């Protein structure tokens, strides 16, 4: 039996029904849907592949079709590809009412300085503190510490320059926080406009 806990997949048995690898798509789809329904964390593709001995391509096709189905339905719940996994989340349309009635809380937003620092780390990782300071023109140590406290940023290792300073990068939590599936889903820097030489802001 496989358990999902804190996003880490632990396998007790290697395969559940090794003989029955050619189950029909509909029943597998239902199974994957049920697992996703119960999970608190984004469930990675590999979990399904390992637990139910499904072919990765097949699993991907099924999951994507589930994503589409929920997207087309546009109901209270949608299936989202986030933080390298799949997860059921509520439709943004109902956020306000959910906050009011169920009492779910909005996550605390980040300050401008924290966001700036985070953007630099996200695009330039791994990056050392001195480089962040240079880009922002102000000391950013406190910002990095605060971001680490919120588990959005983590040390990635040391840079082989004098002093061997720590370099920083973003975490999986960062992806979840911003609803991104992978780092390459970040908006391309070159696509970010408003950054032109004429002042039409």
């Amino acid at each position, binding site marked *: 039996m496989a*358990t*999902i*806990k804190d996003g880490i997949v632990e396998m007790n048995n290697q395969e559940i029904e090794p003989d029955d690898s050619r189950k029909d798509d509909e029943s597998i789809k239902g199974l994957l849907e049920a697992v996703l329904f*119960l*999970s*608190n964390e984004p469930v990675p593709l590999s979990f399904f592949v390992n637990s139910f001995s499904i072919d990765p391509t097949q699993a991907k096709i099924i999951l994507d079709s589930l994503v589409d189905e929920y997207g087309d339905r546009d109901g209270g719940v*949608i299936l*989202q590809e*986030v933080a390298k996994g799949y*997860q*059921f*989340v*509520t*439709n*943004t349309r109902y*956020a306000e009412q*959910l906050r009011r009635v169920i009492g*779910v809380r*909005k*996550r605390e*937003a*980040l300050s*401008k*300085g924290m*966001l*700036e620092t*985070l*953007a*630099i780390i*996200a*695009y330039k990782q791994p990056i050392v503190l001195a480089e962040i300071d*240079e*880009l*922002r*023109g*102000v*000391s950013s140590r406190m910002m990095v510490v605060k971001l680490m406290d919120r588990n959005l940023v983590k040390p990635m290792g040391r840079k082989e320059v004098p002093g061997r300073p720590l370099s920083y990068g973003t975490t999986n939590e960062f992806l*979840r*926080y*911003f*609803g*991104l599936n992978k780092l390459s889903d970040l*908006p391309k*820097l070159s696509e*970010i*406009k*408003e*950054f032109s*030489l*004429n*002042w039409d*802001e």
Partner: protein
Amino acid sequence: MSDIEDKIETAPGKNSENSPILHIDNFDGPLDLLWDLIKKAKIDITEITISHITEQYLEYLKIMEKLNVRVATDFIRMASELLFYKSCALLPAGQIEDEYFIPPLPPELVQKLLEFKMFQNASRRLMEEYETSSSRYARENRLDDIIEIDDFGEVSLFDLLKAFAGVIESQKAMDEEEIVFDEILVSDRIEYIKSIMMKRDVIHFPEIFSTKPSRMEIVVTFMALLELARTKIVRLLQHKMFGTIRIVRNSVTNNDIIS
């Protein structure tokens, strides 16, 4: 300078001597300020003169000082950097023939500014992403609770008393201590249990007691629990026989727990 003065005047926080405490955050550092100054001059960044911008920058620092602001070192550093560039520009350079040549901002500073601005905009984009993703909620209950909950049935009064006896028993094993009379009110304990239940839907029976409960505390807490169960604020569930009793908030329906 009106724009900048506006920014200062709208700065939050005034102390009693009526001298506003300006937060440097209005400008997110010297680069932000520099960018703003260039923008206000409505001159292309590659054409603006170093002397012009240095003058403006220093003027702004003066205003900040006048307003009792502890000017952050980063701002001062940028000022000295600007003055350095300006003085470099004053030195006669061999190649330049045109005596009316006005030195522009050094390319390294322009580059720095543009890069800074790019990341500032990137952070704005991140903010938008955040706005969307923070409006999506995912399930947050613990999977363990879902899996085990099937084994729990309703609890009889007898089971509850047995659990109560268990706590009393553990009390006996403790060392003797000085008796401090401590008034514990049932209403306080009710509030305490409710406060735990606010955060979690399901708690175990022993959790409502402190680690070394006094007899008084045990009795009062138990009474509080009975009261909560009677008024149907909580329900009590127990694993088949002699298991740990679980206290479940009543607003959580069976379906909520299982699904």
